[in-house]
C-alpha cells in the first residue's frame, strides 16, 4: 500500500495547485474526497481484471500547452459534416484550431473561459463523479481545462459538435487531464462526437472526465472514438445525470490504445428516461480494454439498454462490467444488457461481468453474455459458396459489430469507423487515421 500511497502523492505533486476552475468550497470538498480515495489495486472490486500498473509505472510530466501542426487536426476532423470543432491538446483548449458557434444561442468553448457562468457553477461536480472514483476525483481536483457546452432550452443543434482530443508528449512521458461539462437544457437535442488521438511515441496517460446533464426531455447522442497509439493509455470517465423524459445514447468505439478504461455512470434521476449504451472494441495486439458501465435506476418507468461487442485478436484482453441497480421504488424499470465477444486467438481473453442489483419487483431485466470463437459452421457454409476464408471472416465480423456501428447517426463518422474496422479486419494497421507519431525534427 505504501507504494500506492507514494504513487498517489507523486501524481498529486505533479499538478499545479489553484489552477482548477472550480469554486473554492467545492474544490476543498473534492480534495477531501480525493484524500480518502486510494488508487485502484488488485483488491479493488471494480478493477478486478484490470491492472493499472502499466499506467502507474511511469514518471510523467504534466501535459503542456503544445502546438501541433494543423494537418493533423485536419486529418482527424470530419470536414464534410460541417461540425463545430473544439480542440484539446494535452487537455488544454486550442483557440487556434477550434471554430464553433454555428448554431446560435449555444455557449461553448473552454471551461476556463466559462467558469464564471451560472450553469458552470451550478453543474460542475454535480454528477458526484469525485465521490468514490479515484481518477475522476483526481481529474476534478486538478484538471485545468476542458470543454464546456451549454445548450439552452428548446435548441436543436443541427451540426454535430466534435471534440478532438490530442495527446502529444513531445519526447516526454506526459499526463493530460481534461474535464468536460455538457449541459442540455429542457427539450434540447445535440450530437456530440469526441475523438481521441495520440501524436507521439512516448508513453502518455490521458485522464478524462466528462459530466453530462440531460434536463427534462432533452436528447443527447454522445459518440466516443478511441484511436490512440500503442503507448497511449486512457482512463475515460463519463458521468451522466438524466432528468424526466430525457434520452441519452452513448456509442463508443475503441480500436487502439495501450490500457483503455472507459467508465460510464448513468444516474436516472427522473421518470421515463431512456438510456442506450453501446460499444465496440477491437484490440489486436496486447492492448487491455476495459468497459465499465453502471446504470442506476432511481425512479420508475425508465428504460436502459447496454450492448457491447468485442473482437479480440492476438494477445489482447478485454473486460466488460455491466452494472444495473434498480432502487426499490423504481417500478416498471426495463433494463437490458448484452455483452458478446469473439476471440480470434487462443491467447486473447475476454472477461464479462454482469452485475444486477434489483430491489423493485415489477421490473423487466435481462442480461446475456457470450464469448466464443468465430462460428466454424458458418465459415464452412460461406466457403462452400466460393467465398474465401478471410473474406468470410470479414463478412461475419463486420456483421457482428456492424449493428452497433449502424446506430451512429452522423454519417461521415459512421463511415470513418466502418472504414477503420474493415481495414483492421483485413489485418491492416489503421495507423495514420487514428494516431500518428509526430517527429518534431522533421516538422521544422
Amino acid at each position, binding site marked *: 500500500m505504501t507504494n500506492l500511497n507514494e504513487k498517489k502523492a507523486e501524481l498529486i505533486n505533479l499538478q499545479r495547485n489553484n489552477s482548477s476552475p472550480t469554486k473554492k468550497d467545492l474544490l476543498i470538498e473534492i480534495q477531501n474526497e480525493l484524500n480518502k480515495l486510494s488508487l485502484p489495486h488488485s483488491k479493488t472490486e471494480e478493477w478486478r481484471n484490470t491492472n493499472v500498473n502499466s499506467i502507474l509505472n511511469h514518471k510523467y510530466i504534466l501535459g503542456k500547452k503544445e502546438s501541433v501542426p494543423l494537418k493533423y487536426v485536419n486529418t482527424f476532423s470530419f470536414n464534410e459534416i460541417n461540425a463545430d470543432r473544439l480542440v484539446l491538446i494535452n487537455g488544454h483548449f486550442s483557440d487556434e484550431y477550434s471554430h464553433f458557434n454555428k448554431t446560435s444561442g449555444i455557449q461553448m468553448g473552454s471551461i476556463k473561459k466559462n467558469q464564471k457562468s451560472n450553469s458552470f457553477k451550478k453543474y460542475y461536480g454535480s454528477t458526484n463523479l469525485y465521490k468514490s472514483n479515484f481518477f475522476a476525483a483526481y481529474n476534478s481536483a486538478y484538471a485545468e481545462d476542458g470543454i464546456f457546452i451549454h445548450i439552452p432550452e428548446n435548441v436543436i443543434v443541427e451540426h454535430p459538435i466534435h471534440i478532438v482530443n490530442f495527446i502529444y508528449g513531445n519526447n516526454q512521458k506526459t499526463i493530460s487531464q481534461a474535464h468536460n461539462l455538457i449541459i442540455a437544457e429542457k427539450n434540447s437535442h445535440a450530437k456530440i462526437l469526441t475523438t481521441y488521438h495520440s501524436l507521439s511515441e512516448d508513453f502518455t496517460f490521458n485522464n478524462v472526465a466528462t459530466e453530462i446533464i440531460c434536463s427534462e426531455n432533452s436528447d443527447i447522442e454522445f459518440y466516443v472514438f478511441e484511436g490512440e497509439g500503442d503507448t497511449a493509455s486512457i482512463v475515460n470517465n463519463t458521468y451522466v445525470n438524466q432528468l424526466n423524459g430525457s434520452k441519452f445514447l452513448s456509442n463508443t468505439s475503441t480500436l487502439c490504445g495501450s490500457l483503455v478504461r472507459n467508465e460510464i455512470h448513468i444516474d436516472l434521476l427522473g421518470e421515463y428516461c431512456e438510456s442506450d449504451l453501446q460499444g465496440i472494441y477491437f484490440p489486436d495486439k496486447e492492448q487491455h480494454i476495459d468497459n465499465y458501465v453502471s446504470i442506476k435506476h432511481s425512479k420508475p418507468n425508465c428504460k436502459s439498454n447496454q450492448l457491447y461487442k468485442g473482437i479480440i485478436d492476438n494477445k489482447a484482453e478485454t473486460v466488460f462490467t455491466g452494472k444495473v441497480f434498480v432502487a426499490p421504488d423504481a417500478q416498471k424499470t426495463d433494463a437490458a444488457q448484452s455483452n458478446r465477444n469473439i476471440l480470434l486467438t487462443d491467447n486473447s481473453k475476454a472477461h464479462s461481468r454482469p452485475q444486477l442489483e434489483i430491489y423493485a419487483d415489477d421490473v423487466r431485466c435481462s442480461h446475456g453474455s457470450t464469448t466464443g470463437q468465430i462460428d466454424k459452421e458458418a465459415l464452412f457454409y460461406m466457403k462452400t459458396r466460393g467465398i474465401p*476464408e478471410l473474406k468470410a471472416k470479414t463478412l461475419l465480423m463486420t456483421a457482428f459489430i456492424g449493428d452497433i456501428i449502424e446506430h451512429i447517426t452522423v454519417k461521415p463518422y459512421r463511415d470513418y469507423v466502418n472504414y477503420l474496422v474493415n481495414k483492421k479486419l483485413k489485418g491492416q494497421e489503421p495507423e495514420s487515421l487514428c494516431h500518428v507519431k509526430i517527429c518534431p525534427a522533421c516538422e521544422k
Partner: protein
Amino acid sequence: MLKIIDLKAEINGKEILKGINLEVKPGEVHAIMGPNGSGKSTLASVLAGRDIFNVTGGKVIFKGKNLLEMEPEERSREGIFLAFQYPVEIPGVSITNFMRAALDEHRIHKGLKPMDAAEFLRYIKEKKALVELDAKLEGRAVNEGFSGGEKKKNEVFQMAMLEPDLAILDETDSGLDIDALKIVANGVNKLKTKENASIVITHYQRLLDYIVPDVVHVLYNGKIVKTGGKELASELENTGYDEIKNDADNQ
C-alpha cells in the same frame, strides 16, 4: 464429370465412408437413398470439403482435377454446389451481400468482371423468381429465423445464382410443403442442362416423381450396396430397407 473411387473417410477415428465408388456423367441425375446414419450427408460434406472429416483412402476426380486437394471455396468456384441438409444461419449477413460476395468470387475465377449493381439486381431478381423466394427474405440475414422450408428454398435459390456443374442436394425436399416441393423441383429442373449434373439425396419417392433420376443408389453403412434405375426408388418405397440391410450385413 465426377468420379469417386474407393473413397474412405472417418471422424474421430470412426470410419463412416467405407469405400464408395460412383461415377456421374454430364447431364445425369443420380439419387442416393439409404437409411438414417448410413453416411449420405457425410459423403456430401466430404465432396464439399468439410475438414472435420478425415479422408483415409480413395480418390475423387472432378472435371479431370483432384477434388480432394482443393479448399471448399475452390471446389465451389470449380462448380460444386452443396445444398445443405441443415442450412447454417449467418447472423447479420444479408442474402444480397452474401450472394454478391459469392458471385463476385465465381466471376473472378471465370475471368469475368464482377457485375455492376444494376446487373446484379436484375440477376438476383430473375433467380428469385425461379424458386419463388419470398421478397421479405431479401433484406434478412442468411437463414436467420427462416422456417425450415424457407431455408431449403434459399439453398436452391443460391444454386440458381451460382449455376454449378454438379449440384448435391441433401434432403432438400424434407421440410417442404407440397406446393413448395413442386416449386423447388421445378426450379431444379429448369436449371438442368446437358452439361450439368446433380446428386439428389432423399428418403422419398415423392421428390423423384418430379426430379426423375437416371440412376438410384442405396447407401448403407458407408457403402453403396445397390444401384438401379428409377424404379428402384419406388421398390424401396414399398419394401423398405430390410432386405438390403440383411443382404449387406450377411456379406
